[in-house]
């Protein structure tokens, strides 16, 4: 098999899996059978494309192949299959009027249904919508493959038994359900952006999956400001991905990153999406977060960062999403705008917040302010505390280096 065909199949897997699987599931109304047939279609592609060449529309070829296979299996096993609970979908009823009648949307709304636990929503989305193998999903979340397989199987069983519908929610529920979908996409991205444990700082498999999901949602729901805001946010953060580590693998802070290597194409795409999101309606959570990311990428140098703007955007964000982590980020920005002493003052009320009690960034931020104030002993204590709260090896190496610096003073 030529490298080209292998690459074409891999590319088709990344871009077309969701459509092939979702369309087949709509026909079979059985997630396991749809998975089997979709996988089979990609195996067929690997076997036949070297002879026939890569088809003009790989997605259509794969979908047809998966559906043909499903039709054969259903004909053969019809009596057996009938005994199993099936996906509930309303074929006869047209979908919501505004063009939301798409199998991929049906699939992602089903995977992120509120009757499924958050961990299982994430696992199902990566497995069924992104097409990651169970082993890949297990690796991403550092659990045993058997554990992840059980989690996915249980969720699929619940979809069938409780009859969680394979459907885009009705307009009166769409907003709430879409928020859950976007939270799952955002969670996949943030888990990949700073992996909670392990040797790698970034898990590109996860950030890449999250961006593909956000792109798919934006393609299917181009008029939704929250979707647009989320895609803008992910792209503006991703634009800096290549500069977050030094060549020796050390964590580089925003102030140390080589801005000339930030991805200009992602920045202009993200900025255009952000402008569009803000034009559509009053700022939403993700749009404001994207605006903060945009202020960073638009500063030609760290010293030119507009901290006043960032502080006020965090103020807006707090109104929309009053989370302790947002308060912490605002305190950091205050520390850069008004100096480390002001930053420490802004941090003070957060130290007693139980929600942040095991949040390593709080200790790391406090350590940094103390270090900049030359309060070496207290800074060392705070770095030590931060070290007890992260298992990411790249972060640990960075914090250890800082700890040695302040201990040497």
């Amino acid at each position, binding site marked *: 098999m030529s490298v080209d065909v292998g690459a074409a199949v891999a590319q088709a897997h990344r871009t077309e899996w969701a459509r092939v699987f979702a369309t087949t599931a709509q026909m079979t109304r059985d997630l396991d059978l749809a998975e089997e047939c979709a996988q089979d279609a990609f195996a067929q592609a690997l076997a036949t494309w070297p002879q026939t060449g890569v088809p003009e529309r790989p997605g259509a070829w794969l979908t047809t192949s998966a559906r043909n296979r499903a039709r054969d299996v259903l004909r053969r096993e019809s009596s057996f299959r009938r005994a199993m609970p099936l996906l509930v979908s309303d074929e006869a009823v047209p979908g919501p009027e505004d063009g939301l009648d798409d199998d991929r949307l049906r699939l992602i709304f089903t995977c992120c*249904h509120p*009757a499924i636990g958050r961990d299982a929503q994430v696992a199902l989305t990566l497995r069924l919508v992104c097409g990651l193998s169970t082993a890949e999903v297990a690796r991403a979340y550092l659990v045993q493959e058997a554990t992840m397989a059980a989690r996915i199987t249980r969720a699929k069983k619940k979809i069938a038994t409780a009859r969680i519908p394979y459907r885009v929610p009705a307009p009166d529920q769409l907003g709430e359900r879409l928020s859950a979908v976007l939270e799952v996409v955002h969670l996949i991205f943030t888990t990949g952006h700073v992996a909670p444990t392990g040797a790698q700082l970034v898990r590109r498999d996860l950030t890449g999956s999250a961006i593909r999901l956000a792109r798919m949602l934006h393609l299917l729901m181009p008029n939704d400001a929250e979707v647009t805001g989320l895609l803008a946010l992910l792209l503006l953060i991703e634009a800096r991905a290549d500069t977050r580590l030094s060549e020796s693998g050390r964590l580089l802070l925003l102030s140390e990153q080589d801005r000339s290597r930030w991805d200009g194409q992602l920045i202009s795409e993200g900025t255009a999406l952000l402008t569009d999101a803000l034009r559509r309606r009053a700022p939403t959570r993700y749009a404001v977060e994207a605006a903060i990311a945009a202020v960073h990428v638009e500063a030609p140098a760290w010293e030119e960062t507009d901290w006043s703007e960032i502080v006020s955007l965090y103020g807006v964000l707090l109104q929309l999403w009053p989370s302790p982590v947002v308060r912490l980020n605002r305190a950091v920005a205050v520390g850069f705008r008004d100096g480390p002493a002001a930053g420490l003052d802004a941090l003070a009320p957060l130290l007693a917040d139980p929600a942040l009690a095991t949040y390593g960034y709080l200790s790391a931020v406090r350590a940094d302010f103390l270090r900049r104030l030359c309060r070496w002993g207290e800074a060392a204590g705070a770095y030590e505390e931060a070290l007890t709260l992260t298992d990411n090896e790249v972060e640990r190496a960075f914090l250890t280096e800082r700890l040695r610096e302040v201990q040497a003073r």
Partner: protein
Amino acid sequence: MAKYLILIYGDEQQWEAMTPEERTVHDAAHGAFRAAAGSRVLGGHELALVPMSTTLRTDGAGGVTTTDGPFLEAKEAVGGYYLVEAKDLDEVLELAAKLPEVHAAHSGVEIRPIVEHE
């Protein structure tokens, strides 16, 4: 179509403590639920308080022992149920959200799919 059991859980003391006015409002909400659900409600009742229950278990020697009280002691008890028929979970969720117990702080409802035996 599929069947679901809606189990209504709550703190019996709080149900007991309802004033006659609160009880009237509560009953009216159940009336509204039944009206909205129509023929989709296949059955449903309020249950007598937990101290009124009787439990049967094996005595481990081939016989049965009868005891006063519930199978499981818990602060929250099942106070009633509805058996409903719907085409999917979303339809049940929409209906069940109309129940007054969903909106009181001490109570909630659990939705269990019914397993059909042919």
